[in-house]
């Protein structure tokens, strides 16, 4: 389950890096904002299903604001990629405190929606919870849809072309600026959706973005930054590694994924599915 969430969040991070060359430190923030937007929707309307739509929309809009308002100022400057890391890092410090200011420090409880409570069936000795199956289903629907979007549509074509040669795409007369905004918002919306569907499993708290961000870094290093398949494979591997060590010897759970990353770095610096030469020595 962890794996599914990680895949969704890491995909956004990976797509944005591929296109814009920016490691988006604000990505964890979108995940956290998604959870809060979902919580707010449930508070106001009582509908979890509505939250699934409002959270990505609202946070996608925040993504547009961040891209237009902040990131746009640094494109084309010297060391734009560094500056991108720095400003998104600044946002990552700022926004959790803004959320604390608005919603208070303590986390917010988020109930599993009534329709998805309880166990669906038993698999051997393990209860399979309906909600976990729901997360699986959401991921199973979203991933092919995203893949089609990136590989079978004009927008996807521009994104992939921009990833390999941005200048050339601009010279072809394509409005790259708009594509960047859309891509950034798409990444934010994905993270937000992951945030909403995780919310019932954990408490909604301002700090939840930081942890998931680092786990996503590990996912993308293991899978290969900028690669769709890499994000999926990396998410599954790291998610499973977390779950398994958590079951067997939970003291090690936090460390094992870092060791996995160090191993991949030593053996295959570009990651399992990374393209040759991606930021390599």
């Amino acid at each position, binding site marked *: 389950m962890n794996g599914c969430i990680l895949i969704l969040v890491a995909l956004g991070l990976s797509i944005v890096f591929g296109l814009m*060359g*920016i*490691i988006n430190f604000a990505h964890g923030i979108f995940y956290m904002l998604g959870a809060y937007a979902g919580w707010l929707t449930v508070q106001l309307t009582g509908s979890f299903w509505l939250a699934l739509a409002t959270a990505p929309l609202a946070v996608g809009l925040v993504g547009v604001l961040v891209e237009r308002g*902040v990131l746009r*100022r*640094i494109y084309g400057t010297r060391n734009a*990629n*560094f*500056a*991108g*890391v*720095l*400003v998104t*890092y*600044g*946002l*990552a*410090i*700022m*926004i*959790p*405190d*803004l959320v*604390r*200011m608005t919603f208070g420090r303590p986390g917010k409880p988020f109930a599993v929606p009534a329709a998805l409570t309880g166990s669906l069936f038993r698999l051997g000795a393990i209860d399979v919870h309906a909600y976990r199956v729901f997360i699986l289903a959401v991921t199973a629907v979203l991933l092919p849809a995203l893949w089609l979007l990136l590989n079978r549509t004009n927008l996807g074509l521009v994104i992939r072309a921009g990833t390999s040669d941005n200048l050339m795409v601009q010279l072809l007369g394509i409005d790259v600026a708009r594509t960047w905004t859309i891509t950034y918002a798409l990444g934010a919306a994905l993270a937000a959706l992951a945030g909403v569907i995780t919310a019932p499993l954990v408490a909604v708290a301002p700090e939840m973005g930081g942890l998931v961000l*680092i786990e996503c*870094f*590990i996912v*993308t*290093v293991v899978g290969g*930054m900028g690669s769709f398949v890499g994000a999926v494979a990396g998410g599954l591997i790291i998610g499973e590694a977390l779950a398994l060590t958590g079951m067997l010897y939970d*003291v090690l759970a*936090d*460390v094992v994924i*870092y*060791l996995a*990353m*160090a191993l991949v*770095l*030593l053996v295959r*610096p570009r990651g399992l599915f990374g393209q040759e030469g*991606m*930021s*390599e*020595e």
Partner: protein
Amino acid sequence: MKGIAVALLLLATAPLYADYTPFYLGLLTEVLVFGLFALAYDVLLGGTGVLSLGHSAFLGVAAYTTGILLARWRTPLELSLLAGALAGLATSGLLGVLVLRKRGVYLAMLTLALSQVFYYVVLMWTPVTGGTDGLGNLPILHLSEPLGWRLSKRPITRYYVVVAVIVLAMLAIRHLHASPLGRVMRAVKANEARAAACGYDTRRVKLVAFLISGFFSGLAGALLTVVLEFVPIENIHWSMSGSVLIMTLFGGTGTLLGPFVGAGVFIWMRDFLSKHLEYWEVFVGGAFVLIVLFLPDGIVGSLQRWLARRRGAPAQPAAAPVEPARLARPRPPAGAPAMDGALLESRGLTKIFGGLTAVNGVDFQVRRGELRSVIGPNGAGKTTFFNLLTGVLPPTRGQIFFKGREVTGLPAHAVSRLGLARSYQVTNIFGDLSVFENVRIAVQSRVTHYRCWGRADRLAAVSARADEILRLLGLEARRHVRCAELSHGEQRYLEIGIALATDPDFLLLDEPTAGMSPEETQRTAAFVRGLASHVTIVLVEHDMDVVMGISDRITVLNYGQVLAEGTPAEIRANADVRRVYLRD
């Protein structure tokens, strides 16, 4: 020097001024320690341009090492401090080796993720580290017996110990920046690929920068333990890396004073803002975003620039036209015996990019003293061929021999050290450095690579040789100009000059006349012809008049293969060449 004396005086007398309370003194001490941390951080960021988000590990491991030594073994203070600094060094070495397989923002992400391992180790190893409670109960701090001096717990004594250590560290880092190694670090920051082409192992330079930065970060961590008499777990959490990044950029990267100013501002925000405002991080984060967007030089950096402008920047000599280059090479060519065999040879050299064979089975021989031109239509594989010869790209198949030894697969810096230099088709100079430093750093590569003692500008032979080269290029009037401000033609000359400065036996010139006017092209052709009496040259060139006029022999490449080779007259007469290349 005057500034340093004033700063020292201020620091020494600070406790005498009004408001001498343990609280403020403690705060000042803390600012100094964090200033040292930021200064150490800037060795990496301002020195080599490497963005790290893993410095919490260096600071934290050192802080815990010192704390554990003090608490468990009652180790003397100076030994504990040293052990802390060494722990920082070891941690940075471990991290550096792993993350330097990548570069840029990807590297930054890796440092962050890897540094968290140390956090978790501390978190889990509660019996030794105290876990989330931090490590307390440190004994009264004392120096070792021979000194016999017991350090009292009064904050003023501690203040002076910290000031002494920090002044020493500052002097050491200042020395580092002026040393040959410090200059190489700046060259790596300005243009890593070109630094490698000058013979510097850039990955090693960055690793050394990591180690130095780790050592001084460790020292800061050890001092922090002494100052606080406590090791909070926040010291090793990744947010500490963010804090030091913020301090450094607040103050201004690349300055000696900036990190301390940044630390002061940061700690002021933390202590005073947080007293009045519950959510002070909004302001820190917001201020940071604004600084990155609108004040990239930081407080001190911007002040310095503003002062320099008010004082009226040192009058720069007007753009003197490039004189016709004087060709006499002041030094006789390296006294190598004339060799009958080829100086450079490739056998069956092949490079395949995906489905494209850019260079296809090229057999190529150049004798010592020859001026060889390589021509061919666009996309014939000339630049790729150069990249293979100079170790920038590994060949798919085939071998390269230089001076009789095989150099296939050697990295670019190793090829350069053997005496094979190149210039680039697209100007590739150290844009942020002065014209003089561009050449000087290349000359230095033949004398010393990574020496971190002595001052680089006292290497008299290096400076003299750099001046000779500038005269040769006709650029001596422009020696203090930032080279990014040179005209295109001047940059093209500097491009060749950097290659020449490594004192090569063999020089690859990739379209030196690219973008030049006809007169400049003619002058450059004469310049290259003059060079050829001292150094073996392979020239890629599109201007046929130049090629036919100055070459001894010509090799024609087409679709990555050798189409023809011979004297200019033979090539002119070659039917294949006329058909394919001249398209008649």
